[in-house]
Structures are given as structure tokens and as C-alpha cells.
């Protein structure tokens, strides 16, 4: 069965949620990864969104973290002030699931600007949203993002969110654990170490015994392609 690297990335993201109780779902790719996790390895996981919803059971794949399908049938909808204060800052979130435009070897994340001068950026990105808040208050953080020399940089142009609680990074090429710095622990099927090195803006560290990510199963791919994203909104 053939599959894309984006599919492998999303599947690896979903699998990383096994055993988690409460996941704070960031903007973008994390949305589809948690939807897959709810249908596979983590049926009991409760999802929390910065829009002010806890315990969503969406009837369709949400188009954004503020989709009305996240509200209907959820366990709790509340002012954002309550969610940020009592759920997130209160320490109830096991894992925050974030994307980013840039990450560096320390796990610091940039979603603010490309370029050295904040006031005259080369590219203006969306900014923090809840990312900086999640990065400091979730017990740990998993990052899901596409990897390239432009996104995996030696030092981020702007540190939007600190890497202090980033525990794992999952890309379309492989999986990293993060202590003091990123270490490659698994390569996705068909990806070579040279390819990863070419897509990393620093001298890559390897964990002892780099493995291969088990490929997406037929069932995982069926859920992704038929149930969750038939229009390829996230999987494009």
C-alpha cells in the first residue's frame, strides 16, 4: 500500500497520543492527527481547544479550532478566560500539540516573523495565538511540522514559544525526542539519513539506535482518506 510522507507524519502524530488523557490541540495539522488518534490509539482522549471547548466529539473533521462541530455534543464550552486560567494554567493539560514555521536545535518555536528584524520582517507569520501559552503550561509539548532547511534552523528568527517543554517533534521525515536538544529517534519509511541531514539547518544529533517508523496501517489510511479528509484539506 502506498502512502505519502504527510500521511506518515499524521499517523506518527496520532500514535504519539496513546495513553494521554487531555490534549490541547493547536492550529493546523494537529487537528487531523488528534481526530485519527480518537479513532485509533486514544479513544478516550479528551480534546481541548483554545477557542473554549473541552471534550469535543466532532461529527466531521473540523476546518479550524473554532469549528461549530467542536461545540455541539462537547462536554464543556466556556469563556476563553476560564479555559486558559483553570484548564491550561491550572495544569490539567497533559500534552500540547503544536505546529510551527521554524524550530531550532533547542526546540524553540517560531510562528511570528521570518527575518532578523521584528519591525521590518521578510515574512509576517500569524504570531503566537495560544502557542506561547500552551508551550509554558502544558505538561509536555509535541510538535508536528514539515521539515526543511527553512523550517529546521540553527536558531529561530524569533522565539515565539519556548522549547523548554517540547518533548517530541514529528515531521514528514522522522521523529525526534527533545531533551537539551533535538535527537533523531526514527526515520519514516523510505527516508534516508542523508535526506534528513539535508533538511536540517544544524549538525544533526542522532539518538542511540535510530529505528524506522512503522508504516501507516491500512486501517489508519482508510480513516484518514475516507472518513476524515476525503477532500484533502489537511493532507494536501
Amino acid at each position, binding site marked *: 500500500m502506498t502512502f505519502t510522507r504527510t500521511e506518515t507524519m499524521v499517523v506518527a502524530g496520532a500514535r504519539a497520543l496513546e495513553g494521554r488523557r487531555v490534549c490541547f490541540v493547536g492550529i493546523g495539522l494537529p487537528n487531523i492527527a488528534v481526530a485519527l488518534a480518537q479513532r485509533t490509539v486514544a479513544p478516550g482522549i479528551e480534546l481541548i481547544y*483554545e477557542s*473554549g471547548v473541552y471534550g469535543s466529539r466532532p461529527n466531521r473533521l473540523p476546518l479550524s479550532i473554532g469549528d*461549530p462541530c467542536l461545540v455541539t455534543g462537547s462536554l464543556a464550552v466556556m469563556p476563553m478566560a476560564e479555559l486558559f486560567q483553570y484548564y491550561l494554567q491550572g495544569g490539567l493539560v497533559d500534552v500540547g500539540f503544536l505546529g510551527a514555521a521554524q524550530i531550532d536545535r533547542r526546540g524553540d518555536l517560531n510562528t511570528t516573523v521570518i527575518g532578523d528584524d*521584528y519591525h521590518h520582517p521578510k515574512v509576517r507569520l500569524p*504570531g503566537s*495565538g495560544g502557542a*506561547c*501559552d500552551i508551550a509554558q503550561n502544558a505538561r509536555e509539548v509535541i510538535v508536528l511540522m514539515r521539515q526543511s532547511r527553512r523550517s529546521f534552523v540553527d536558531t529561530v528568527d524569533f522565539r515565539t*514559544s519556548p522549547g523548554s517543554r517540547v518533548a517530541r517533534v514529528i515531521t514528514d521525515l522522522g521523529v525526534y525526542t527533545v531533551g537539551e536538544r533535538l535527537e533523531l529517534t526514527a526515520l519514516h519509511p523510505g527516508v534516508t539519513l542523508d535526506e534528513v541531514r539535508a533538511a536540517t539547518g544544524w549538525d544533526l544529533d542522532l539518538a542511540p539506535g535510530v529505528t524506522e517508523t512503522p508504516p501507516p496501517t491500512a486501517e489508519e489510511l482508510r480513516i484518514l482518506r475516507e472518513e476524515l479528509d476525503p477532500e484533502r484539506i489537511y493532507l494536501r
Partner: protein
Amino acid sequence: MSKLLPMDEAVAGLVHDGDTVAIEGFTHLISFAAGHEIIRQGRRDLTLCRLTPDVIYDQMIGAGVARKLVFSWLGNPGAGSLHAIRRLVEGPGFEVEEYSHFGMVGRYAAGAAKLPFYPLRSFEGSDLPSVNPNIRTVASPFDGEEVYAVPPLNPDVTIVHAQRADVHGNTQAWGLLGCQKEAAFAARRVIVVAEEIVPESVIRADPNRVLLPGLIVDAVVHCPRGAHPSFAQGHYDRDNRFYLAWEHISRDPQRLSAWLDEWIHGTSDHAGYLAKLGEAHWDDLLPGPALSGEVDYGDHR
């Protein structure tokens, strides 16, 4: 005394050049209709505040109503970028002031509670405090621990869209509540825009459902579908095709200008905008029912 006004009178009377304005609503209940009327009336030099500027502020800023933006996430959610704003931000002269979501929520909350600052755990290890002098630290008077703090934000006017209100401005909403309540209590003036105007008895039947009391509301505008292309839980879905289309309209200044001419300046009010959109446009945006059930408050006498 009724506070019911047509949108044009509410905006003319309560939104002035140079004002600090918040049209809040987190993806949900964004008063596009009020933003459009502000464009029609040609307001200038506004300071616009919103966690997520969204397409509405891209339209307003593209139309030239603002000189400054206070925000925490600048994107077209799920669809791309806000190009009119980006063109200004990437160039000189347009001012921005940037927080995280929690930071913005805290600013409104401090404004609503009349506090000189709001303490929160965020920003540690982030570069945001180095580019925004309004993000500082404060030490606990008990154990000396330092946390971050943001200052109050008190808009001159906050505009809130909701599912229902009475003519006095008593307002109820359900689904995502964003920081509509905090932004309204923090404001000097409040405009409520409602899908439905209901008798006061409907509000009084379920007082725990209140979003805002009429006490803080200056004008109530009846404007069904006034949140389009954003959504109103239980009333209509997000018009995602429009959000996707905006990516292309906004990218090209000439297309943006043509869009404003056709849809905003070319319509006299939101009824005109809706007529142009056509009733068939709503065919796949209207959800089936999902009722809340009732609770019993008891006739305690």
C-alpha cells in the same frame, strides 16, 4: 426604554474616528455587518483590537479605516493569510501591538475588572516581551515568585454579535464565547448585534445563559446573518468557501478594492449584502437541530 437602532445609526452614533474598537468573537459570532458599516461610513485612524484579526479586519484595514492593530494571531484560519494587513505590517508606518491569546484575554479581563494589570504564566523564554514593552513581570507579595503581567485594555467601543438579545440589550449567546464578555465589560460603549430580538421574558427564563446585561449596552441592532461569513452556532455554519476565496481577493490590492466597491460600498446595508448573496447561498450552511434540553428554575414563591 428600547435601545434598538438600525446599524447605520448605531455605528454613526457610537464609533468615532480615532477610537479604539474591538469587534470580538473567536471564529464565532464575528460582527462582519458592523465592520462593513464602519467601512461604508469611512471611519479613519481606528485602533483595532481582536485576538484574531480574521477576514473582517483584513477588509477594514484594506479599506483604510485603521492606523493600528492590537492582536495575538494574524491569519485566515484554515485558509491562508490576511494579505491586506500583511502588506501594511511588512511595510513602514502601520503600528502593531502583539500578545499571545492568553495575554489578550488578560488585557480585556483587567479592563473589565478595572485592575491596573493582569498576572499570567506565559511569555517566559519568549521574545515577545522584548518587542512589546507592555509585557512585564510582577513579583508575588507572598512568595516573591515572578509571573508576567499585561495592562488593561479598555476599548472606546466593543461590538458583540450574539444569537439573541432583548431591546434593552440583555444578551444571550451559546457555543464559543471567546472573550466577548470581557471585551464588552471593558468598553466605554457597547453595541450588541443580534440574530434575533426576543421578549425580555425569554432572557429572564434562563438567567444563567446571559452573556451581557443591558446595563452595559448602548445600542441593540437586529441583524440576522450579520456574522456571515463567520458563523452563529445553531443558526448557520461558517461559509468556508468565502474564507478560501478571500485568500485570493486579499492577495491582490486591485481585486480587494473591487470587492469592497462591489460588496460594501455597492450595498447600502447588510440587507443589501444579503440580497446580493442570494438565499440559495445558504442551502448548505444551515444545520439541522440539536436542542439543549430544558432545566427547571422553579417558581419559588
